[in-house]
């Protein structure tokens, strides 16, 4: 098996352009074994059934980049986020952060590394301890990662962070509790807490999904401002392709534990190659009553990740699937014709077959 699908096709150009990536994900799989009964385990000595949440994923995130990871529920996108942070251990494959193999680090080394990577979750209320003041919540990571700071120094850092996330004047907020502020403000606090240790990587898992429409754009704007101010790299996990459009440099589309398409946002949105990406983009409701959808929606629903379809996982729902090919051969990420760094896992739209169709034999 080749070491990496991405490397074969596109990585060299990435590397030349932007130096070593901050995050590299190589052949990562995460299976969650299914609970089986005692009798079943006695009689069924074969392979234990498992949910294949992530089933062979490769990508990399360059420093300073906003890398989007999009897909429907159950696609595995959140699991990938946790694997990147080593909050979950991969069943197979490796994750590298700044060149370091996370699986090789000692618990102590991993703990030190944690200050360089942080996560922001969807629900700020669930992320904040209701009995901690906002100031205490933001100071908490500092107590762990920078224990030598004095009380005064910590307080100063907390107030600086509050100001950076637009909670002004900071002294008004530091002693309040999470329930005393609005939902949008709570998410600002979660962001402040994530940034207080000056991390390099932020995994943002649906960071604005709970926020109301009228405060969403302010939160996105804040995240992008902080990215510049703190030299951040984002892994932006979302189901909302419309929002992703406003923030991501590159985007990967996931389906049933696999990346089916990845590339520069403009290229993926402008000329999606994978039929699933096309359907997904077309299904996004557009705030314009005159707009009409153009693609037929895929048949049926997402199959179970316990026993994914053979060949291309999308073939049972795909409008262009060719039987005898798509249900047999498992497509890898391959170059999309006439594109730059744009890969798709579709036997008909990317790789040698697609290239062959595009250019007449010489």
């Amino acid at each position, binding site marked *: 098996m080749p070491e990496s699908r991405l490397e074969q096709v596109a990585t060299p150009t990435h590397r030349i352009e932007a130096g070593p990536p901050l995050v590299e994900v190589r052949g990562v799989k995460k299976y969650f074994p299914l609970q089986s009964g005692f009798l079943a385990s006695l009689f069924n000595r074969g392979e234990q059934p498992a949910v294949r949440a992530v089933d062979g994923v490769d990508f990399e995130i360059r420093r300073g980049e906003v890398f989007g990871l999009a897909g*429907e*529920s159950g696609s595995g996108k959140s699991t990938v986020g946790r694997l990147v942070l080593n909050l979950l251990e991969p069943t197979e494959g490796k994750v590298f952060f700044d060149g370091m193999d996370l699986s090789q680090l000692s618990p102590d080394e991993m703990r030190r590394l944690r200050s360089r990577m942080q996560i922001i979750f969807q629900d700020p209320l669930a992320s904040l301890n209701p009995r901690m003041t906002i100031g205490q919540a933001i100071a908490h990571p500092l107590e762990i990662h920078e224990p030598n700071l004095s009380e005064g120094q910590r307080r100063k850092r907390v107030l600086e962070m509050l100001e950076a996330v637009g909670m002004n004047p900071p002294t008004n907020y530091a002693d309040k509790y999470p329930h005393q502020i*609005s*939902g*949008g*403000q709570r998410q600002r606090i979660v962001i402040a807490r994530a940034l207080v240790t000056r991390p390099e990587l932020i995994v943002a898992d649906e960071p604005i999904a709970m926020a*109301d*429409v*009228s*405060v*969403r*754009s*302010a939160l*996105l*704007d804040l995240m992008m401002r902080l990215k510049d101010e703190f030299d951040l790299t984002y892994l932006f996990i979302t*189901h*909302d*392709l*419309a*929002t992703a*459009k*406003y923030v991501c440099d590159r985007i990967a589309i996931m389906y049933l534990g696999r990346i089916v398409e990845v590339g520069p946002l403009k290229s993926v*949105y402008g000329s999606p190659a994978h039929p699933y990406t096309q*359907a*997904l*983009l*077309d*299904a*996004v*409701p*557009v*705030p*314009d*009553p*005159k*707009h009409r*959808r153009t693609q037929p*929606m*895929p048949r049926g*629903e*997402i199959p179970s990740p316990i026993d994914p379809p053979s060949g291309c996982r999308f073939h049972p729902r795909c409008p262009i699937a060719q039987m005898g090919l798509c249900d047999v051969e498992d497509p890898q990420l391959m170059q999309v014709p006439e594109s730059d760094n744009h890969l798709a896992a579709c036997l008909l739209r990317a790789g040698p077959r697609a290239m062959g169709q595009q250019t007449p034999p010489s």
Partner: protein
Amino acid sequence: MATSSDILYSVRNLTVEYETRHGVVKGVDDVSLDIRRGEILGLVGESGSGKSTLGKAMMRLRNGSARITSGELWFDGQNLMELSERQMRDLRGSRLGMVFQDPMTSLNPVQRIVEHLTETMLTHEPEWTEEEARARAEELVERLGIRRERVKDYPHQMSGGMRQRVMIALALALNCDLVIADEPTTSLDVIVEAKFLDLLKELRDEFNLTILLITHNIGVVAEVADRVAVMYAAKLVEIGDVNQVFEKPLHPYTEGLLKSVPNIELDSGALYKMEGSPPDLSSPPPGCRFHPRCPYMMEEVCPIYDPPFAPPEGASEDTRVACWLHHPHPQKVAIGA
């Protein structure tokens, strides 16, 4: 213009109050609204705007401690406020249907889909036989794109999209006139959502349904609604034809909302950023409730006087807006009078 016979449901000066620790809060504050026969009316608002409370009140369903304290609800010529709880119960399920965000909480987990459907039918149409009801249930479920044999499934065996279709089937089981759908697609993925919205439009035509679609998703409204009503801080701020409202919103809140929604089809760079956040309803701002966030706020009127919800000067009855930019100012009225 709509005549009175075109109107299926009329809400008149409805106020719904809740008891909270901070005293009585008006979740719906003096709201009037007409729903026309055969239309899909989109009701949009952010969380806490009162849109769900309004939807439940229209069925006379209680939402927690919420209580209707004043107003009238006219459904097909009948004042629902005068009906007994028993009469109301007959109406719900037979002529008024409801679809909620999370169908799992609306369906009985230990009852098969077919039992849900036949029970509803037999309760309201006792002269039907079990077989008739069952046949109709299978027919309906199939019409909604679920395989006939899956009526034997329990709710947990179905996907979210299927469960939502079962909810619609329940509403259609008795040919109901009005379906109030509260965030019906919010828990669905976009592809399932798109299919569900297509189905909703088809069913409206086929079954002559009238639908009140309550949602926070502006894109969903644009996709299916004929008219749109916008709610902010327990009040309606604008209502009108969907094309008109999206093209030329009259209320600054509607305008801000539309500009801050990400649009996948547009090439524009940045999103519009609305200032502040919605007010706390236990102490709403005086005058126009949007004035603290409004870029067009007029110091001498907006923070003082509550704007009327009425057609703008010179416009038809079909459009209504609650904003002083479109109504004569109170001082001028006083001088003229």
